[in-house]
Every structure is written in C-alpha cells, then in structure tokens.
C-alpha cells in the first residue's frame, strides 16, 4: 500500500521486521517512518509545563464554547460568566494528563469556594475510557466530550491550547488570563488561580 516496492518488501524481509519487534517505526525502513503516525508512536504533542499569565487589560476574549458533557448534558461556558473558569484539555490515554489529574482535583476543590469552576475538555477518547478515568480519579467537575477536538479550534487566534494537556484560565469577565502548556502543577496553575481570583 505504501509507496514501496516488492524490492523493499522482499529485500528487507520478515527477518528484519521480526528483529525490529513491535516498534512500528522501524519496520521497512523509510517507508514506515514516513507512514507511521509519529515516529515514536506517542501520538500527541506534549508541552513542557510552561505557563503564561496576562495582566488585566491585556487579556484576549475567550471564545464562546459549548458542547455536550460526558454525561450527555448540554453545557456552555457562558453560563459560568462571573466565575473564573479553568478549561483543561485532557484524554484518558495521555500520560501527563493522568499525572496532573490529582493536582487538578485538589485545586478544583480548593478554589471552588472562591468562585472558580473547572471544566474539562476530553479529546480523542471513547465514552467508556473517559468514564473510567473520571471515576478513577474522582473528577467532580464536568467535562465536555470533544472527540474531534473542535473546541481547541475555537481558541485559535486567541490563546490556543498548544499541547496535550493544556489548561486555560478565563477570568470572571470572559477573558483569557493564563495558560499552562503541558502538565499543570500546584505551582504553575495555583499561582495563576491565586492571581486571577485576587483580581491582579
């Protein structure tokens, strides 16, 4: 199927492929490397955990986001106007997302009284795996089901989520105040939340 020839198939041979093992990236040399989604099989673009914060007055508008949650209900971010909204893009298959999940759960509980609402955006997931993840980590906040990642498209042009996981913080008036690209930590996300809720 791939732009290869009988020459490559037979010349490389099953022996080479058996030796390469399950590492899909190595079978058939150049062809598979070109055809294998991601040469290392990780299949997502991860971030380094860096965060950025925007002072009041220089914050771009957050786009209108709405969709269906994992439990089937309709949800729109505009219904949270007046609260600080933390939008976290995650997937149950994504290791850094799993690693940051306990941190997010803690921060969600910590800041709920200060008017902060966490909303997850679950991408590239099947309902069964997503449900199992939410139960496993005890996620109490709702997550929008977005298998085709269209919500991330909505943020294009403002402060796009540039990796998985990404976390965006939207202030009470609907402007994007901060972003963490990659795994969020108490330090990175906590600082942003502290500043936003304090109004600075």
């Amino acid at each position, binding site marked *: *199927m*791939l732009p290869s020839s*009988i020459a*490559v*198939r037979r010349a490389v041979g099953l022996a080479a*492929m058996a030796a*390469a093992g*399950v*590492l*899909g*990236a*190595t*079978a*058939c*040399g*150049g*062809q*598979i*490397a*070109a*055809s*294998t*989604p*991601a*040469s290392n*099989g*990780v*299949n*997502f*673009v991860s971030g380094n955990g860096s965060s950025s914060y925007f002072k009041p007055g220089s914050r771009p508008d957050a786009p209108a986001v709405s969709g269906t949650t994992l439990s089937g209900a309709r949800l729109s971010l505009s219904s949270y106007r007046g609260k600080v909204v933390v939008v976290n*893009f995650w997937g*149950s*298959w*994504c*290791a*850094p997302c*799993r*690693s940051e999940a306990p941190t997010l759960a803690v921060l969600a509980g910590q800041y709920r009284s200060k008017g902060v609402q966490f909303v997850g955006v679950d991408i*590239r997931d*099947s*309902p*069964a*795996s997503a449900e*199992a*993840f939410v*139960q*496993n980590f005890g996620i109490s906040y709702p997550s929008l089901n977005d*298998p*085709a*990642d*269209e919500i*991330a*498209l909505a943020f*294009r*042009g403002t402060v*796009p*989520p*540039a*990796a998985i996981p990404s976390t965006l913080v939207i202030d009470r008036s609907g402007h994007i105040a901060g972003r963490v690209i990659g*795994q969020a930590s108490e330090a990175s996300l906590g600082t942003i939340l502290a500043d936003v809720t304090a109004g600075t």
Partner: protein
Amino acid sequence: MTDVRTSEAGHGTSEAGHGTAGEPATPPARPRARSFGVLGWARWIWRQLTSMRIALVLLFLLALGSVPGSLLPQQGIDPAAVQQYYTAHPSLAPFLNALGLFNVFAAPWFAAIYLLLFTSLAGCVLPRALRLIRSARALPPRAPRHLSRLPNSTRYETSMTAGEAATVAAAFLRRRRFRLNQGDGWLSAEKGYRREVGNLLFHIALIGVLVSISVGGLFGYKADRLIVEGSSFADTVTDLDAFHPGHLVSASDLAPFTLTLNKFSASYIPSGPDRDQPDNFVANVSYTAQPGGAARTYNLEVNHPLNVDATKVYLIGHGYAPVFRVTDGRGKVVYNQATPFLPADQSTYLSEGVVKAPDAHPQELGFAGVFLPTAVDVNGQLESAFPAPYEPAVSMIPYSGNLGLNSGAAQSVYQLNTSGMHRIATPVQVLTPGQSMKLPGGAGTLTFTGYKQWISLQVTYDPGQAPALISGVVALAGLVLSFLIRRRRIFVRGYDAGSGRAVVEVAGLARSDVGGGFDAEFAELAAGLRAAHGGTDPAAPSEPGAGTRPAGDGADRAGPAAVAAPMSDNERSVSSEGTE
C-alpha cells in the same frame, strides 16, 4: 564567474572582471612595495569568492557533501534507522555524528557550502545584471579593419557606391532585428543579447529557489495524524500526532479545518505474480474548511492529496484497527474502542498492537498481540494469508499491573511497557469477531467485537512551494534561452573601387556557437546581402580565394585575438559558455 578572456595570444589572465581598480599593475621586476591592508584582503577574498574557479570548487564540494547524506541514515528522514546504525556500529557512529553526518542537510558545514556558493553566485550575477541593464542600449563596436581575417568572411563587387551599399546593408540587417552602429565606410550589427538575459535569469532564479526553500522552512509546518474510520480530527496542535513547525510558526497559524474519515477501501491483487500487491486504495473523507463551514467530501488517494486553504493533506499509510471491549474485575466496561495496530508485514498485513486499560480495577490491564486479516493455521503457527480482511482474527496476551501511565511519562501507543506488569497465565486464544477471552480469577474479559481501518495522514503547509516552482521554471527557461541564442556580430565595409563600383566586404563573428549553426546563418545572411547589393565576383582577386586566409600568413594566427579585442573593450562580460 570569470570573464572569458580572449587571450589566445597567451597573456596571463587575472580572475574576475569587475573592472575595479585593485592593486596597481607593476612590472614583474619591481618587488611589491606594500602589502594588503584589511580592505585589500577583503577585496581579494571577495574577488576570489566570486571567481569561476571557486564557484567550481564550491559546486564540487556541494555534490561531495551530499554523498554521505544519501548513503548514511539521516535523522530527519528515518530516525529509527539512525538508531539501528548506532547499535550496529557503536564506535564509528558517535564519530560520524560529531561530523554531522547523520543530519547532513541541516548541518552547519553543508549550509556553509551552499551559502558561500550563493554568495559567490550573487556577487557575480548582480554586477553582471547591472552591467547588462546599463549596456542595454550600447552599440556594437566599430568594424575591424581587416574583415578578411575573421572566421567567416566574403567579399564581392557591386555597382552601388560605398555609401549606398552601406545604406542598403543597414536596412537589410535592421529588418533582421540586428542592432546597428554605423561609421565612415563601415557598419557593425549585433544580435543575440537575450543570451545574457537568459544566463542571468537562470542564475537569479537559482537564488529564488533557495529563498523559497528558506521561506517554506521558516513559515511552513508538517504534521502527522492517524485517524480511524468514523472519527474526525481538527487541524490544531492538540489534535495532531506529531507537529514539526518551522521556526516562525505558532499554533494559531494552522488552517482551522476539520476532517472526518467516512470510509476507507483497499483492494489487493488476489493472484498471479503480483499477488498481495495493493491494487488501489481510496479514503472517502468529509471536511469543513472552517468551524461551521460547509461540509465537502473528497476521495483521498495516493497522488491525489486534499488541498484545504493552501494546506495539503496526503494519504500516507493505512492499516487495521480491531475494536476491543475490556471489562475489568468489577464488571465495568473500561475500554471500548477501535485500536490502531501497525502492519508488521507489508504483504500480508499481519498487524501488531496493544490495548491499555489504565482505569481498570482492581488492577490495571494491558493486552499485546496481533491482528490477522486472513488468519490461517500453518503447522500450528498462526499466519495471515492475504492482506484483505477475509478471515479476521486476533490473538492477545493479557497483562496486569502498573502500565506506567500515571507517572506522566509519555509512552508509545503501540507498545506495552511490561516492566511493571506481569503476564496473566492463560492459554493463548485466537478470537474471531464476537468472541471473548475471559481472564482467570475474574480479572476481566476482553472481547473482540470487530475491526475498522485507519489511515495515516500528513498535513503539510509550505508557503515556499509555489515560489520554488516558479523559480525552477524560470531557471529552466533562462537555461534554454542561454543555450539557444547565439551572440553574433556582422561587419560590413565598403571601399570605392573606382568607376562607380564599390567593393563590399562582409564578415561575421559568433561569440559562442553552441548550436553550430552560425556558419549556415552567416552564409544565408551574406547571400542575402550580396543579392541586395547586386554583388558580383571581384574582377581581379588580389587575395587567393575568399573565405580562406591568405596563404602562408601565419601572422594571422593572432587574428582572432586582435579582432576580438574591440569586443572586450566595450563589454567585459561574456557569456559563461565561452567560445567554442
């Protein structure tokens, strides 16, 4: 590029004819009184760099430098092969890596070669272009005195006076689009200036190609995505498997399209010498160029990429994604989706993959195994007989323990890290669609519910692509132009021969005669001129025969040099093809 000196007389030539002053010419006997200053060195280096000789050397180095880039595995093309090379040659590999030989085309030394080459090119071409523009209206030089010394010449008598003959000749040549210069008793005509235009166009277009490639590299990006039948993806960084942006690309620059794979169909040759070879594959996709835009469909195939807003989507590969449902120890369904498996054998599409259920309780579950499109039992060994899914089956090995996902370290989705897991002891089972494998001890169940197909896509945006193509085509046009057009001169002299007659001498010179047709062209022109003048043979030839050199006139060997000298006075630049 060095000007070709018309130095058949054998004088030593100096490189690069920019016409700049340089050092004052000193007779060889006197020793040099002063050495180069900084400016002198700079000028000398520049002159060397833009010389033809250095251009030749740099061209050779460019070719030579590309050789290891084609024979050694390259990081940018096949990183896995580089890894294999390291394991195969553990002592040699680091040394080669230090020389940059595993990424030749991005290596600094390779960049140095082509940057120097293009500097040399620009440093020669731009002044020549300026000179061409300035000399665009320059007239041909005056006709040499002894036209019979030129390689092509003829003479005849005419009943016109010399002045009339000159006028007639001028009209004749002007009709043939020669540029004319007239004087007392002589006429010079030149044609073929477009040759230099073609030459310069070619070289400037090469610079254009380099600039286009740089623009593409800076502002373009390449991304990969594997997508299973029935699912969609959006062109954002969060939804791509791999993203390779240029240095000046940010996440907002991606075209905001969404694409859904409706159906993928592949057919394979069932019999004959080309059995198992793919016959055809088509991916039927729907896409919207913007969120909320109109949905369109397209049949994506190899050689038929999808073009959305200058971003191209290519079909690169395909495979099978068996659908599994995993129930954990509590009886909950913790996994239920199509899982892409990678083909391990290109001819039979026996594919390998893993299932990971990290949210299973009480223990995390993982499965690793194979999918066979057409499963057959060969002496107790399970094999796939054909790449089409006639008899799909899977065989998976169960593991439980710690998948390692919660630690945050990214893993390949095609590999199971069994270091924190132990294999669940259960006999190997082959499952057909609908069948389940029950794990012992109530640990869970794996059900093979069916299969889908996946395609792998490459999304590419390259703003330098169109400019590169245009530059390439312009280069080709300039090349052909410079090869086809001859730069040639025709000279006419008339002498009054008394009694109302005049002797007309016609001569011609081609600066470069690639096609070899100048002799024929001169013959035709001379015949035409002769007819226009009503020429007749000279009555008493004072020189033996026309068209040949005077017998025994060895001194005429210097002729071409002397004759050609006037040419070099007027313009220093000569086409790089040189004389034949």
